[in-house]
């Protein structure tokens, strides 16, 4: 992965994988409303993918400097197995943690690279993932920890 | 009367000047009274605006011919008075129709206007008019007594019925003015003057409280305007007459303005200070002290001045 194009392809691929992950899970779950929700997550990932595609086509730019709030909810929740009887709470935890992992991945890549252009690209991707994570964290905060 | 067309032209000029002056004077007096009352008062040109407004209005009532003629008589009285009073002594232009017996004519016209007014107002049928006329004629008759006595006194004193000659006799220094030569007559006349100008305490005829408006109750629009014009002309004529008879007349317009204004202020000064007499009280008043003073003036003239 040495060119911008390759990196973006990699990222687009990751988003696709995530979308597939959620739609597969949605097939399997038994809980009444989880299916709808997981398909919603999947759509969300496809939206991210679409955004990266337009970055690749040069229609959009990634902003590496923005500050995205980190609620740090994902950091202290336990790991959850995506099982058939997954609850809403657990699904959100899974989502948060996936986005967090993606964020870490891009951040690490940025740290290990010297090319300023690529570095900035990785940082931009990391911020994107941070934003996605924030979305799930906010939902967790609102839907699960209503009383906390 | 040699050159009567120009005489008439000069008279028209006099009439205009005196009329305008009379209007202005009413504005000045209004402002003066306002000052006493703690107000700023109307602008000086306000009487002209009022006149213009009244002239511009139409009428919709009919009270008969005499009613319409009332203001005409009234105005005729004012103009008539002015016609025989020389405005400026020794001036051809401002001499008017001065002649041998003009004093009598002037006095006649002063009375005539009131009577005409009385006829017209009486025709309106309004009780306030009728009461006002009764009061007005009663009071007029009363103040005419001291006024007539004062006139008799000075006629005796100057031995003439011509105003111009009376003025001529007073020329040559302030000491020659009637007011100094025959003060009793002037006092009687000035008290009568208070009655004529209808300022308090002798304003019961048109008192706004004791019966609203009085004789002119029913008059409006151009009738009212005609009466306002008469008031101006009449006031001017009266003042000039008093000035001529008692205060040495005037030889120029400035002197005229100062003197007439001062004479008028006598009524204003008294007017601001007093409430008004009821009509029976004012009649009683005029027939008491002023009449006595008038009689005394004649006696004084006969006894002191003539020998």
């Amino acid at each position: 992965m040495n060119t911008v194009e390759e990196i973006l392809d990699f990222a687009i691929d990751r988003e696709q994988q995530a979308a597939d992950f959620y739609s597969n899970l949605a097939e399997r779950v038994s809980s009444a409303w989880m299916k709808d929700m997981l398909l919603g997550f999947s759509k969300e990932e496809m939206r991210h993918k679409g955004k990266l595609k337009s970055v690749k086509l040069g229609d959009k730019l990634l902003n590496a400097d923005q500050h995205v709030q980190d609620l740090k909810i994902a950091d202290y929740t336990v790991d959850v197995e995506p099982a058939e009887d997954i609850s809403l709470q657990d699904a959100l935890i899974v989502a948060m943690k996936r986005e967090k992992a993606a964020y870490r991945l891009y951040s690490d890549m940025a740290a290990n690279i010297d090319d300023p252009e690529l570095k900035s690209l990785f940082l931009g991707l990391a911020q994107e993932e941070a934003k996605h994570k924030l979305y799930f964290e906010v939902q967790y905060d609102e839907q699960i920890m209503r009383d906390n | 009367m040699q050159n009567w067309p120009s005489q008439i032209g000069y008279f028209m000029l006099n009439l205009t000047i005196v009329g305008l002056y009379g209007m202005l004077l009413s504005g000045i007096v209004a402002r003066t009274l306002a000052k006493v009352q703690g107000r700023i008062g109307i602008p000086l040109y306000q009487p002209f605006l009022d006149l213009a407004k009244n002239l511009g209005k139409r009428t919709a009532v009919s009270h008969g011919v005499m009613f319409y003629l009332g203001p005409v008589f009234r105005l005729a009285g004012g103009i008539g008075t002015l016609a025989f009073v020389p405005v400026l002594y020794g001036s051809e232009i401002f001499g008017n129709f001065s002649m041998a017996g003009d004093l009598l004519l002037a006095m006649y016209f002063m009375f005539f206007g009131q009577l005409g007014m009385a006829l017209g107002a009486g025709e309106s049928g309004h009780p306030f008019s009728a009461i006002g006329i009764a009061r007005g004629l009663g009071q007029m008759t009363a103040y005419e007594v001291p006024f007539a006595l004062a006139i008799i006194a000075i006629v005796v004193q100057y031995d003439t019925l011509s105003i111009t000659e009376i003025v001529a006799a007073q020329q040559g220094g302030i000491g020659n003015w009637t007011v100094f030569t025959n003060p009793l007559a002037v006092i009687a006349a000035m008290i009568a003057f208070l009655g004529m100008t209808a300022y308090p305490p002798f304003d019961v005829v048109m008192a706004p409280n004791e019966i609203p408006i009085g004789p002119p109750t029913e008059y409006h629009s151009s009738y009212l305007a005609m009466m306002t014009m008469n008031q101006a002309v009449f006031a001017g004529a009266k003042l000039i007459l008093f000035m001529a008879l008692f205060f040495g007349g005037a030889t120029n317009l400035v002197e005229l303005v100062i003197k007439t204004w001062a004479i008028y202020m006598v009524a204003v000064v008294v007017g601001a200070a007093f409430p008004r007499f009821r009509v029976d009280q004012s009649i009683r008043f005029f027939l008491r002290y002023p009449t006595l003073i008038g009689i005394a003036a004649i006696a004084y003239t006969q006894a002191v001045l003539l020998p």
Partner: protein
Amino acid sequence: MFEPNPPIDLSSGKYLKLWQGPQHPGITGNMSLELITRGDEVVDCKTHVGYLHRGFEKLMERRTFIQNFPVVCRIAVPEPTFNEYLYAAVVEELTGIESPPRAEWIRTLNLELMRLASYLMWLGGIGAAFGQSTVYQWTVTHRDYILDLFEEMTGARIYHMYIVPGGVRGRLPEGFEDRCRDVLNRVEKLLHDVEKVLFNNVVFKTRTKGLGHIPKEMVDPYGITGPNQRAAGFSRDLRKDAPYLVYDQLEFDLITATESDTYARSWVRYLEMHEGIRMLRQCLDRMPQDGPFQAKMPNVLHWEVPAGETYIKAECTRGEYGYYMVTDGSEYLRRVHVRGPSYTHAIALMEKLAVGTNIADIAGLMVSLHTYPPEIER
């Protein structure tokens, strides 16, 4: 004095029937006098009211107790405050609410200022009725100075709507006392001028002395109160005889006269104005500067006053002013009756006094009784 005036044969042609009013500058408000005259002499007088009837007493039955509070001041236009006070007092009496001491002082100040303003207007009125309009302009201007005070104290010049059941509507504005003292000084100075110009005036004396004499024995049967009564030699004043508000803590003298004519009535009022200024100065000096000015009130929106009835009276500028109220425990009053002195003074008394006077004296006579037609027709 109780017999009706003798009948008059109008068709004889000796008499003229003359209507004075209902719009007439000699009457403070709308009422009319039906005069029958012979020459300038009035031989018969009938009083007519009804030109100003707004039905306040009935209106008030259809309004809640708080909603009546803006209504009552309109019963006597030149003196709204007495109505406000009395209405507040009857409601307070029936509900058992007690207005705090500070409010009582402010109310007294208010009432005496109102009395002074009303007298000033009256003083101008008596001058103007007899043709002395200069005094009228002066006094009305000084009344306006008092209205300025009312404006800053209450928010309005005429309909103050300030004395509300339970207390007053607000504290006195900053620096009010000084401005009030200043106005009192100016009014006092003016009064001395008026004394010189009006009361020491030959024409005024000629007009007013002997005019409208009220015999002493007529006073009680005709329900004559206030200065009219005191000018007839009675030493009666509710402020002394049945003190309300803080009048028992104020020093003032009762003014009386014996002549009982228009001049005496004017002179009594003139001296009462001085007493009023004296009282106002005491109020300003001794009024409490803090503390509540309103009692604890229930929610006025649905204020139910317990069933009961009461009559409360106060000495207004014209005499005894009273409110009689009956309540039935609901949110509306059952009946209210307003006793205004103008009713007795302007109707029956005027019919008697007018006979034998001159037409020109009617306006002055009417003013000398100090009546306000609006309060006749509640």
